């Protein structure tokens, strides 16, 4: 199995704050790698640094063997990276359709891809011509994910998709991400919901204070309660 994404010794400064302090990680092609950690550990900064939204001050980032750490965000996106930010960042003044038209960079919307997405997210069909700003939080998250998968992407960077969503919506989102995974997508997924992480993750990376403090199989971490408590200050039992 090959590594699609590799970070070696990546540091990121935001103003005078030294957020990422030498990140080394690899995301294997076709697998879902969970990025876990407490609030403020640097998970979102890691995704934003990969995406070029914050510039790495040191270190190397490569995608499919190509160095990207000094590339601009649009160029990184055009290499086939889809990004779902924590804030969802749907364009609220645009309709659902317009949001997806914009995300389909390479041409008109593909009908079969759209039907596939509507299969997960029927609400998007129903509110096709509604302004995205009028959607509920869960529907905005659906739109944000749909935007990232409207065209095939090499790598999906998804930041806390279940945050603030109702349990029923979380379960549906997990099923949707499983389906995306089954289609062979490579995903780096930041998640605070340990249950979702266990359901989705093949591999896991745990961050603390801007560094990776643990890497391994998700299944192994899920079955090791003392390790969960030591790394994350919680155990899966409390998140069932």
């Amino acid at each position, binding site marked *: 199995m090959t590594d699609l994404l590799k970070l070696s010794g990546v540091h990121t400064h935001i103003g005078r704050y030294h957020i990422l302090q030498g990140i080394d990680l690899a995301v294997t092609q076709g697998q879902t790698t969970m990025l876990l950690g407490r609030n403020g550990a640097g998970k979102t900064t890691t995704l934003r640094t990969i*995406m070029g*939204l914050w510039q790495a001050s040191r270190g190397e980032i490569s995608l499919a063997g190509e160095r990207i750490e000094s590339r*601009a*965000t*649009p160029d990184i*996106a*055009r290499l086939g990276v889809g*990004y779902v*930010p924590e804030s969802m*960042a749907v*364009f*609220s*003044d*645009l309709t659902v359709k*317009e949001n997806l*038209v*914009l*995300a389909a*960079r390479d041409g008109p919307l593909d009908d079969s891809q759209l039907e596939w997405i509507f*299969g*997960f*997210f*029927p*609400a998007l069909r*129903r*509110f096709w011509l*509604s*302004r995205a700003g*009028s*959607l*509920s939080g*869960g*529907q905005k998250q*659906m739109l944000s994910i749909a*935007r990232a998968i409207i065209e095939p992407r090499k790598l999906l960077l998804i930041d806390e998709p279940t945050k603030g969503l*109702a349990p*029923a*919506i979380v*379960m*549906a*989102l997990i*099923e*949707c991400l499983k*389906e995306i995974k089954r289609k062979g997508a490579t995903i780096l997924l930041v998640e605070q919901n340990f249950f979702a992480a266990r359901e989705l993750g093949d591999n896991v990376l745990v961050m603390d204070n801007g560094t990776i403090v643990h890497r391994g199989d998700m299944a192994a971490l899920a079955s090791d309660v003392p390790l969960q408590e030591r790394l994350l200050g919680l155990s899966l039992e409390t998140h069932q």
Partner: protein
Amino acid sequence: MTELVATDPLPKPKRDIAPILLPITLALVTIPLIGSPSTWLTLTAASLAMGMMIFIMASGLTLVFGLMDVLNFGHGAFIAVGAYVATLVLAPFAASVQADSLWVNLAVLAPAALLSMAVSGALGLIVERVLILPVYGQHLKQILMTTGGLIVAEQTLYALWGPQIIPTPLPTSLRGSFIIGDVAIAKYRVLATLIGLVVFIAIQLVLNRTKLGLLIRAGVENREMVEALGYRIRRLFLGVFMTGSALAGLGGVMWALYREQVHASMSDELTVLIFIVVIIGGLGSIGGCFIGAILVAMVANYGGFLVPKLALVSNILLMVAILMWRPRGLYAVTSR
């Protein structure tokens, strides 16, 4: 595969028509105050024409504000440059300007306007690359740089054309008024209103019916996400800046003909009005800018007729009133 169960159906998206009703209400309220229907119609026509000219000048600025988060205090320079460049065409062809034929007049006016737009747009390119690019995201420096640019532009116009006021007489066929009953509506005001409407409709079509427009609207709201979708927003910034500058140039030509004169500091009186319009409308909102421009012009015309002593502060009062009602302007597009 589990299908998502959509939450409660959303209400149909509501169209926010309150701002649209505002100028209509203002116009209706002033009918009994003004008394004479013919005076009211004349003032209303003057308001629409003035509003359209201000809209043309302000529309670029609101997109630049909204999309690029740039405080361009030098926007007025494009207006003045546009007006001066027009004189380069209008002066040598003064005989054609004064000809009785509408078509001959337009054959001079159209190239003058196009040349003004081209030069203002090109100046916009230089300003964006030289003055704005180094200070993106730094508002204080943007104010200093663009204000400095405005001063340099004004002084350059003084140096090239001299301090005197240059007359720009209206073409013969656009002089006079259409008389309907006892109502006189100046021909040029009708033309200015039509051009303003055409510009407004064209901008709306581009913004709402094209992918470029979608990108601009999305960029106004969240530049970062547009880039994360793979679009190079810097190029879009430059295109919008140049278009805004070109429109300011067009507005400058129209204002010069409206006032029948050009002078280097002509933008000073307009800059305050334009900023009021952009703030009232909501940063980045073309619809808000359009309504704001009409409101500002109505307050100036009706207010000047009814309470002349309040004319100087009427637009500031209007801005305060609207911001108390809607703190982010009539149509809030950005969160800034």
